[in-house]
């Protein structure tokens, strides 16, 4: 049984939450430009570590908001809870993020330039 710290509501029983699986999977925006194998990395292949795991959770029977959580899959210790869109801050969770095979996939690479160009477009709009 886990007591989970919802960043919006505080500590609540695990039955109030639903787990959304692996966090930080960026959708390749130019999906027609990458191979089926690379798209499978995004769609089906999952990190499944024995140890610290970065997951998305949702307080489905509470505030219904999503958040990220770094949890150990052996001890069930919650190391860190952090907002959607953010990266982990603790050293252990950071290292899990940086060393994940997913960071090197073509699928994730395909998501990045699109993001950069979005930012540029936003900047361009701002300067007008």
């Amino acid at each position, binding site marked *: 049984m886990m007591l989970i710290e919802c960043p919006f509501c505080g500590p609540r029983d695990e039955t109030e939450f639903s787990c959304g*699986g692996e966090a930080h999977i960026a959708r390749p925006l130019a999906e027609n430009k990458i191979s*089926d*194998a690379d798209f*499978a990395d995004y769609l*089906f292949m999952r990190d499944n570590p024995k140890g610290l795991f970065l997951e998305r959770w949702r307080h489905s029977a509470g505030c219904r908001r999503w958040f990220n959580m770094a949890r150990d899959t052996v001890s069930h210790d919650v190391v860190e809870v952090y907002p959607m869109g953010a990266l982990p801050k603790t050293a252990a969770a950071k290292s899990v993020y940086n060393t994940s095979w997913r960071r090197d996939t073509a699928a994730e690479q395909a998501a990045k330039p699109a993001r950069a160009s979005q930012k540029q477009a936003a900047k361009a709009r701002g300067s007008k």
Partner: protein
Amino acid sequence: MADNQPDRGQRGLPGGKSRYSAFAIAKNAASYHQDWQRAWRDAEPKAEYDAVIIGGGGHGLATAYYLAAVHGMTNIAVIEKGWLGGGNTGRNTTIIRSNYLWDESAAIYEHSMKLWEGLSQDLNFNVMFSQRGVLTIAHSEHELREMSRRVHAIRLNGIDSEILGPDEIKKFVPTINIDQSIRYPVMGGFLQRRGGTARHDAVAWGYARAADDLGVDIIQKCEVTGLRRQGRRIVGVETSRGFIKTKKVGCVVAGHSSVVAAMAGIRLPIASRPLQALVSEPIKPILDTVIMSNAVHMYISQSDKGEMVLGAGVDKYNSYAQRGSFPVPEHMLAAAVELFPVLSRLRMLRHWGGIVDTCPDASPIISKTDIEGLYFDCGWGTGGFKATPGSGHVFADLIANDRPNKIAAPYALDRFRSGLLIDEHGAAGVAH
């Protein structure tokens, strides 16, 4: 499909010198049963094998046995980090059935069922296979309709399956509550009479003994710490008891598949989840079949010792802790008590969890990998026990011939790239 009998392998009388029989019992009685042979040798790892199977559970031992019995590969080893059958083989609820929706699933689970039907004779070991029937209950109109679709699909594949109405169910299982006012009323169900249960430990022990008899080394307390590669091909296995040279490695490690795959730099679509089960104190016989309910994530049977064996659904988050969260069995027990009011005062004796390797399409992976000589048999998720003989049989064929046979081919890892998934969530995603 129904007339295709699996190749059980060419060999003399199984059991070899220590063959079990009524005569052997009488003979050993004369020496006060002090001279029974060990069921299998406690082998030391050799420097090199033709193939190494990682994982000494039912599937791994079955693979080793069929490699030796069907394909004549006897210079092989099974390495196990704990003890034989100490993982999910010893933790499941022992249900066996082959009533799956899709043709690919029917092929492999029915292949397995046929092997079950002669397994005790093949192994000269009583696996206590009992074809007591498996009855799956529908709790809503929609579920019943979906069920009849499935029954027809199953029958088209030559597998026995029939729909029962609530009254027929009551006649078949007198202890069940078919009152329509309960939270999950019994609207009907479907029955596979050839389904049933087997003694899970005996399956591991029987395969181990028969494989050992054919010369397979079974090495317990030997943990894999790494897979050694030369370029894109496998050259050996690093273990806690030293390096073992081999050209072929078969990984059959269930919940730890992702961990072993990571040693070789391979990605799998698997999530490891706890699946829980409980047994009660033993009572007189009240249930002579297996009841499953997908809607309430409950399945129940009675063991030969009289214990009620209950299984729950998987937990909703990844874990390697071999224990589950409390709300899951609580939900299942509430439904069990409503369906079987006779259980309400029963005390539960033991409760445990096993780590199952769930796949996105609730079907297994039996596959070659991008690394030459490295094979995976995993992703059986919540329902691997029933497939033990069939899984071992086709996986042995894959390892021996380095190409999947007709039954194994649809289960290649490649299906997650091609999109040819075998979606069995309806039949497999929940209950076993």
